[in-house]
C-alpha cells in the first residue's frame, strides 16, 4: 500500500499524523510545499490544490482513496494503531483533549507569526498570560489526576502526541517554554519524546521554521 502525504514544509497541524505514522511504521511519500514568508498565507501549487477535495492541505492519497482535514486523517490512523484509549468514552476524552490542544496551538499563531519584534514580544506576553490558566493548568490537572504521565487511560494516545507536539513546537518556533513549572506537563512531554519511534522520527525529521 503506498501512501502520499501532501502538506507544507512545516510541522504545524499535521505533525501529529507524522508521529502516528512513525508509531505505526508507515512508509509514505512526504510531499512538502514551501511555506514562504507567512503571513500572507502560503500558496498551494495548482496541480496539488485541484487534487485536494477542499482546496487545502494536508491531504493523503492511498489505495485509490483520498482523505483530508487534519484531525479526521489523524483519528483514522490513531484508531488503526491503538492510540484511541480502551473504550468509546476514553476515545471521546481523547478527542476533547485533541480539540483543546488544537485551539491552544492556534491561539499562538498570531504572536509567533508577528514580524514586528516589539509587537511580537507584547503578543507573546499577552498570550502566555491567557493560555496559562485556560490550557496549561487544566491539562496539568488532568494528567496529574490520571497518574502523572498521560492524558487519558493507561496507554499512549494521540492526545498525548498532540499536547507534547504543541508544547515542543512553541519552543522550536518561538523559544517559548511553557511546560516549566508544570511537572505533569513536563512528564507527559518527556514520556512522549522518549518513545523510541517518536525519538527516532524527531531526530530524522526535516528541520522547518514552523
Amino acid at each position: 500500500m503506498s501512501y502520499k502525504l501532501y502538506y507544507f514544509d512545516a510541522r504545524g497541524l499535521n505533525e501529529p499524523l507524522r508521529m502516528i505514522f512513525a508509531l505505526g511504521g508507515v512508509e509514505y511519500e512526504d510531499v512538502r510545499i514551501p511555506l514562504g514568508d507567512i503571513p500572507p498565507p502560503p500558496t498551494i501549487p495548482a496541480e496539488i490544490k485541484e487534487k485536494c477535495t477542499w482546496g487545502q492541505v494536508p491531504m493523503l492519497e492511498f489505495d485509490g482513496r483520498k482523505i483530508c482535514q487534519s484531525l479526521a486523517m489523524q483519528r483514522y490512523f490513531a484508531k488503526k494503531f491503538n492510540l484511541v484509549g480502551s473504550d468509546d468514552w476514553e476515545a471521546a476524552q481523547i478527542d476533547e483533549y485533541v480539540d483543546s490542544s488544537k485551539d491552544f496551538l492556534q491561539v499562538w499563531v498570531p504572536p509567533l507569526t508577528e514580524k514586528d519584534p516589539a509587537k511580537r514580544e507584547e503578543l507573546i506576553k499577552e498570550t502566555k498570560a491567557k493560555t496559562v490558566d485556560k490550557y496549561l493548568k487544566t491539562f496539568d490537572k488532568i494528567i496529574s489526576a490520571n497518574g502523572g504521565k498521560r492524558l487519558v487511560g493507561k496507554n499512549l494516545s494521540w492526545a498525548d502526541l498532540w499536547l507534547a507536539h504543541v508544547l515542543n513546537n512553541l519552543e522550536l518556533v518561538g523559544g517559548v517554554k511553557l511546560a516549566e513549572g508544570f511537572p505533569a506537563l513536563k512528564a507527559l512531554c518527556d514520556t512522549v519524546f522518549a518513545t523510541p519511534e517518536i525519538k527516532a522520527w524527531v531526530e530524522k525529521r526535516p528541520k522547518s521554521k514552523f
Partner: protein
Amino acid sequence: MAQYKIIYFGIKGRAEAFRMIFSVADVKYEDVIIKSGDWPAYKQSTPWGQLPLLEVDRKQLAQSSTICRYLGRQFNLCGENPWESAKCDEYVDATNDLIEEWVGFTFLETDEAKKAERKAKFIATLIPNCFSKLESIKEKNGGDFLVGKKLTWADINVADKLQIIEDDVDPTVLEGYPNLKKFKNAVLSLPKIKAYVEKSGYSYKGLENNLGE
C-alpha cells in the same frame, strides 16, 4: 441506560445537532439551561470556559464536534466501517471553519465596518468555496446521505449548519446547490427529526447575549 444531560444556553446553537441525534435515536436527555446572567459564575466550573457540555452518568465531555461524534457512535450513526467514520469526520471538520467564521462576524465582531466586510466575503467567497465542494460530494454519493447508504451524525451536523446559514445569512443560499438543498430537506424531514424541530421552540436568534467567548 445512561443518563444524558446537555448543559448549554437556552438556544439551538451548537447543541441542536445533539438534540436531533437524541431524537433520531429515541433517547431521552435533560436540557440543563444556563441563563446568560448566570454564565460568568458557571464558566469557572467548566473545563475550558465554554459550553456546550454533555454529561453522561455524571461524567462530562466538552467540544461540540467531539460530543456529536460520541453520540453518533453510541447510536450507530457513524458509518459502517472505519473509512466511512473518517469521511463523517472529514465533512464535519470541513464545514466547521465556515460556521466558525459565521460565529465570528455575527456575534464576536464589534467593528460594524469589519462585520459588513466579513459578511460580504462570507457570501461571495467562503460559502461558494465550501458549498461547491460539498455539492459534488453529495452528488457523487447518490442517495439521501453524505456518507454511504445510511444516516450518520455527519448528515445531521451538516444539515443543521446549512439551515443556520439559510436562516441567518441568505434564505436563497441553497438555490445554486440543488443536491445540498435536497439533502438538507431530506434530513430535516426525517419523521423523528421533524417532530423534534416542530415541538422544540428553540430559535437561532438570541445568541448575541449568550456566547461566553
